């Protein structure tokens, strides 16, 4: 494929993605007063991130067993501590260690 058409493809994707991110940020300038919409937007991160995490995490590694270990370790550390780095690293370490025995 020729070089310039690849970059045109990339530009198209990038422009669409940027617009999707930028329009709500710039068009919704004020604090929303409507209690329903306000509450809805407040709950969005919890639902979206939970849906993205599970069950996708279970197929993220080469074995469901190590993936479960990573998931459960992540949940436990997040519950006890909550520090991003520790949770992330702990989940990775669990996958690595369990992977050694599989």
């Amino acid at each position, binding site marked *: 494929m020729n070089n310039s058409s690849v970059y045109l493809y990339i530009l198209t994707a990038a422009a669409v993605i940027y617009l999707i991110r930028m329009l709500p940020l710039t068009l919704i300038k004020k604090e929303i007063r409507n209690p329903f919409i306000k509450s809805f937007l407040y709950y969005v991160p919890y639902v979206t991130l939970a849906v993205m995490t599970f069950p996708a995490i279970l197929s993220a590694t080469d074995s469901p067993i190590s993936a479960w270990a990573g998931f459960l370790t992540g949940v436990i550390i997040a519950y006890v501590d909550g520090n991003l780095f520790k949770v992330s690293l702990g*989940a990775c370490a669990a996958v690595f260690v369990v992977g050694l025995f599989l």
Partner: protein
Amino acid sequence: MEQIKQREVILTRTNNKKEFLQGMQAGIPIGMGYLAVSFTLGITARNIGLTPLQATAMSLACHASAGQFAAMNIISSSAGFMEMAVTSLIVNLRYLLLSSSLSQKISSRTPFFHRFIMAFFVTDEIFGISSARPGYVNPFYMYGAAVVAAPSWELGTFLGASLGSILPASIANAMNVALYGMFLAIIIPPARKDRFIAGLVILSMAASLLFSVAPVLSQISEGFRIIILTVVLAGLAAVLRPVESQEIQEESAHE
């Protein structure tokens, strides 16, 4: 009102610097996870015949994992530009919800031009840590996270596209859960403090599981699954327990 104003992030130079440094710190685990994912992205790019430069340019311009995989799929099938635009719109539609949610976390005192820059870094992860900030989010917090995390997205793509798999399989395998670990670190602590949010998180995961295994439902693409479940479940939560603006400020201020 007075209380909210007091807590409001005031854009002073020292504060911006502090927020930037805190953002950088939060950006480290994100960067780690990005390296693993973008590495795979780079390998995929290599397989469809993109040069390392093209693959890296795409990562720099898009910062979207599922979006970039979809875009590469379009490129490799030599589909039209219209198809590229429509697919990008569909696969990345959830950012519309995330950005709308983020719009409510930006203080009216934040100069408007910041919104155009912040928009560039609304990835799932940077959005996640930003929405977990108490009260309003300072744009410099996002920038701090971005300067640490984004380069590793580009670097991973470049390495994957130019070298193929160089990481030992066991390490690469373990790094694949890094970003999910981050998501857990964002949603579990508030769930611990608030049983309603705990219920919402569990319900969201259960519904997501149902959508991935049930006949018919599992035909729905992941992008749409995220959008449908977010609209339905966050909507349901909003009906069951509306949150007052005062309450939101206080809850987040207590974290």
